[in-house]
């Protein structure tokens, strides 16, 4: 269990303000946020590179706030690998065990084990400068894992890699996490990594943690305009909530999942909206008439803009699009379930 308790840290333009997180044993925890959100400082503070201005950090019940980095047993892997260029792959991996003055035979055994885990046994005698990005990142992972860290921190580990390598290594990370059971804190600005890897996600902005939850939860139930925008909710409306579980947005009154009275935001994911030319049965759903404004193919998906008094964005699969048989200018009906309309108070977690 890694506990970050009300941590503050100010470092020039980057800062952490009152960050609290509880990361469970063996959990794969992703911290998501735009550049400048303070994600790297968070990791470096956990690793012990910086000491917090205020707050505490606990690792498995031990208060490590004032423990130097070398005694924390927390591994760190950076986006740019940071392999020691003057040492071979073998010496890079063995670096930490040599610091601990481990027995040479023990070092060799451990090194072989982690080289096998990362599939880099054939690279042991090479220098980092001669390796590809993906290979270098594997070596960096092996160098951290060979120490059997109590927690492993990954700072945008996939961001410097090309698309194909990134996908491979993403799968590898999931496998390694399963094999070693190490608690992992992984930061990224890329939402794709979340669904494949994360048990839970925290969203950060400007040094604050804004929302923490399972990926599905963050994805479907953002708690603020910022998170909604970040996870790709394209239908964000301001409205007035009533205690009967409806929200008035413009001229529309929609049934929603969680009724809140007063000024609210409504977030509806574009892929949760159904389109048809004939009026579909309501079955408790929200059904509104509208008109197709634009139809824009985007890779395998079709993005449709619909005007229904308020502007909706709808994403259809190619098959769904063909079944709906629609073109720009058609009159259509939009339908979505109340559970697809997520509501939170207006102005939640706005930047001061």
């Amino acid at each position, binding site marked *: 269990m890694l506990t970050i308790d009300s941590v503050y840290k100010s470092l020039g333009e980057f800062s952490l303000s009152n960050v609290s997180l509880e990361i469970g044993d063996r959990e794969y925890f992703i911290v998501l946020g735009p550049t400048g959100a303070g994600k790297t400082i968070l990791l470096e503070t956990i690793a012990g*590179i910086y000491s917090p201005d205020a707050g505490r950090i606990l690792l498995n019940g031990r208060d490590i706030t004032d423990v130097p*980095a070398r005694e924390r047993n927390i*591994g760190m892997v950076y986006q740019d690998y940071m392999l*020691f*260029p*003057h040492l071979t792959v073998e010496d890079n991996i063995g670096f930490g065990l040599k*610091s601990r003055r481990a027995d040479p035979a023990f070092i060799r055994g451990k090194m072989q084990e982690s080289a096998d885990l990362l599939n880099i046994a054939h690279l042991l005698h090479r220098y980092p400068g001669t390796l590809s990005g993906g290979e270098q990142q594997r070596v960096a992972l092996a*160098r951290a894992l060979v*120490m059997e860290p109590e927690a492993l921190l990954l700072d945008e580990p996939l961001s410097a890699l090309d698309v194909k390598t990134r996908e491979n290594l993403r799968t590898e990370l999931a496998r390694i996490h399963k094999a070693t059971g190490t608690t992992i804190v992984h930061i990224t600005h890329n939402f794709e990594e979340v669904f494949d890897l994360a048990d839970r996600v925290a969203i950060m902005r400007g040094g604050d943690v804004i929302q923490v939850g399972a990926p599905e939860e963050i994805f479907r139930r953002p708690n603020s305009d910022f998170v909604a925008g970040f996870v790709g909710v394209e239908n964000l409306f301001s409205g007035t909530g009533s205690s009967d579980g409806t929200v008035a947005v413009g001229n529309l009154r929609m049934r929603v999942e969680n009724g809140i009275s007063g000024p609210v935001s409504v977030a509806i994911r574009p892929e949760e909206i159904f389109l048809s030319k004939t009026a579909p049965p309501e079955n408790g759903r929200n059904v509104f008439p509208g008109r197709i404004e634009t139809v824009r193919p985007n890779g395998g998906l079709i993005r449709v803009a619909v005007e229904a008094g308020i502007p909706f964005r709808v994403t259809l699969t190619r098959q769904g699009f063909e079944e709906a048989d629609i073109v720009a200018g058609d009159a259509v009906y939009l339908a979505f379930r109340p559970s697809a309309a997520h509501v939170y108070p207006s102005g939640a977690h706005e930047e001061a």
Partner: protein
Amino acid sequence: MNLKNPSYFRAATVAIALLIATFIVLVLIGVVTHSPPAVLVECLLSEEIQFAVRLSIITSVISTLLCILVAVPVAYALARYTFPGKTVMNMLMDIPMALPPLVAGVGLLLFFGVSPIGKSLAAAGLAFVFTPLGIIMAQFFVNLPYMLRVTRSTFQGVNPRYEYVAKTLGCTDAQAFWRVTLPMSANGLLAGSVITWSKGIGEFGAGLMLAGATRMKTETLPLSLFLNMSTGKLEYAIAAATILIMISVVSLYAFERYGGATHVY
């Protein structure tokens, strides 16, 4: 070159470059070829020039080692840490470089000759005034800024995250420096040492002031050149100059070779 459309500007700039390169080569060849080869060899093998070569090499090697020893920790502090007075300190360290060496020499002479610190050092057996020790001190004082600047920019070129990783792998600050930053800086330090050493060999003004120009006592190569020139023994002066030219050319080559190969990680 495009012959249909000649650029006079290009022709003019290249011509000036050629002219000045020729001038430099002529000046150097003029020195080296002034004496007949037999005379040059005889002078090079003379006791006085041999003494000057030995003294120059010993003093410059020691002063270079001292420069490395001091520059490495100072450059590291200036490259990595923030502390009060850092900006002022950075500027102070560069002053000896901008100062005319003769002025540095006068300062050193007063410091080691008449100040209480200098006097007590002399009383303790460390006499710098008019001794070979003074040559080492003069070279150290004048050349330290060069070593410092090269070393500082070398350390700044090493991403501190290498040290962060080293610390998460069990290193203390000092171990991270010793096992990671220092080896990664090897080329830069080598290049800095070569340039510092070659400047030490050629150091004249400050050494003249502090150590004086005593034949066969504080007679380094540049001093030998100066002494023999002023007493009319031109062929000895030429011999000293020839050696200095060779050292300059070789060390410049070494600096370019290693300095150019310095990786900025």
